[in-house]
């Protein structure tokens, strides 16, 4: 009997290794990507049809409900601020000196001409709270072994009905994402790279986000400075801070 168990254990182990729990993977991904608080400085390189623009920004976030972004350059965007509180999004424009709530179909508009919409920006919930997951296979991405997870929405108010993500088996960060509409049509594709260690977390510092319905090179989001779990003045997450 002992001999039988000894022979069986490696096979059982192989079986477990081949079918990891998708929710454990998502949990680990969320642990890497989400933090209690985050201050991120970065730049957004928008590859347009006629030219390329670089927009720098600083963003503060607390959990998944609060975030505040200030655009620093170029001059056209400098001073524009966005505040997200739960499901609400406000934008402040220094040119008009107005704070305006973005809602309805405006949420589907592009953020600063990038391939990302306001709706994409608003979606910060934990993956396992929004999607039902299955591991569908394994693949090597940029020389790293990945699990392929297929996610199907379990809630109504989600921007993408279906997602496919390639998760690094060692570092538990997504290296590639495909976002689909309810009809099954591929809408957007994201490629994560330059994964760096920040404390106990791995975090991709470059993301190329591409709307596949547009014929472009997409938009690069590059993290230039990242501070995780730091104290942020609660005033930042108020509408008054927009006009500051």
């Amino acid at each position: 009997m002992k001999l039988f168990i000894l022979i069986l254990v490696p096979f059982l182990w192989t079986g477990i290794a081949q079918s990891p729990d998708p929710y454990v993977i998502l949990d680990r991904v969320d642990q890497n990507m989400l933090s209690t608080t985050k201050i991120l400085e970065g730049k957004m390189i928008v590859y347009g049809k006629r030219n390329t623009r670089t927009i720098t920004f600083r963003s503060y976030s607390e959990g998944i409900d609060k975030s505040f972004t200030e655009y620093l350059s170029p001059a056209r965007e400098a001073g524009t601020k966005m505040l997200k509180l739960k499901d609400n999004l406000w934008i402040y424009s220094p040119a008009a000196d107005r704070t305006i709530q973005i809602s309805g179909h405006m949420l589907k508009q592009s953020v600063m001409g990038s391939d990302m919409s306001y709706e994409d920006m608003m979606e910060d919930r934990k993956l396992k709270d929004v999607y039902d997951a299955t591991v569908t296979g394994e693949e090597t991405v940029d020389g790293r072994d990945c699990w392929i997870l297929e996610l199907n929405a379990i809630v109504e108010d989600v921007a993408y009905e279906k997602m496919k993500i390639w998760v690094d088996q060692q570092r538990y960060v997504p290296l590639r994402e495909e976002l689909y509409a309810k009809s099954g049509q591929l809408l957007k594709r994201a490629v994560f790279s330059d994964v760096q260690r920040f404390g106990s977390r791995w975090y991709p510092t470059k993301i190329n986000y591409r709307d596949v319905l547009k014929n472009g090179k997409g938009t690069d989001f590059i993290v230039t400075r990242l501070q995780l779990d730091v104290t942020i003045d609660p005033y930042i997450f108020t509408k008054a801070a927009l006009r500051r």
Partner: protein
Amino acid sequence: MIKFIFKGLLRDKSRSLLPILVIMIGVFLTVGMTGYIRGFIEDFVDQNARLQTGHVNVVTKAYAQNESLMPIDLALLGIDTLMKKLETDFPGYTWSPRINFGGMLDVPDESGESKKQGPVVGMAVDLLSGNTDEINRLNLHTALAEGHIPEASGEVIIGEELARKLDLHPGDKVTFIGSTMEGSLTFRNFTVSGTIRYGVRQMDNVIMLLDLKDARSLLDMENGATQILGYSKQGVYFDEEAARTRDTFNKKYAGSGDQFTPVMRSLRDEPTLGYYMTYINSFSGLMIFILIVIMSIVLWNAGLLGGLRRYNEFGIRLAMGEEKKHVYKMLLCEALFTGIIGSVFGTLLGVVFTLFLQYKGIDISGMMQGGAMIMPNIIRAKFSPDLLSIGFIPGVAAMVIGTMLSGIAIFKRETAKLLKELEI
């Protein structure tokens, strides 16, 4: 001879009344419907040309492919050079740059918070340079419902229905939110100088009209325009002339693979507009043809019945030595007079009907809800001198053709059997 025929027609009502009535109704329908359809096409073409397409227009190749999305990032740039070229190469046209763009209009309350928001389609035209071509072309003085046409930078004029929905009045402040040509977020405060009413839902519900310079600054589109509209200096759209201009222009850029190469289109190239113009023109021609055929058949039958009724009369005339050809000619003369009388009355009625509809019009706004095309809400008929002949000639022709067909029976009468047939 003519007097004799007239007397015959006047004394024998059954010979003249029915054919005259048939001709009159047929000609009336032809003239009335043609006037109505002509008026509709002209209104439709003119309104679309003035508000949207021009008689010809120049855009980039990429813009032409995605026009419904109003992609300002695919607009024409460096248009001063292009405008000069167009003015030199095509002096028969007046050229006007315009910018069409989408966005949102936000109305603030007293504390500056959003009170109301609504989607808006911006149309930027030259309003402030002192050249009044575009103001006249857009009939702004007539369309003005409230307030005044923008007189200074920072003023906009909006559709009456949009103003009603957003509860806006002249003097109110609004904020436009949209994207620049590069995709940056753009906010700009404007003052509503007035409201306009075109009677076209697609315009009145969403339009925001502003000066070209303001739009260029708002959208970071220096020396740019989404399109350059060309209007024939004769003021009327000629399809063949527009197609020739288009082909000459496009030939010059035929070799270029650049997506920002300018491309010219004629009014008819606008897919929906072209389809409707072809459809309505074909329908108009088909209707006239059907009316002639139907009238001919009806009059042929009327002629046959008349022939039967006048069987004895023809027999006696032939027996008295009148030639078959002569009887046939007399019948045709009668038909000609009947046709002329019916056609004159029919044309008169048709013209009166056309003039009435030209003045009064038919309100079709209820049928056009949610439509994507610019259609006039009130369709008016249009009188043109050719309406005097368009029904007249087919009316006379139908009567003569009908009689020619039925009169053939005269030649089948055998003179030898006449006395027996007449029971003399």
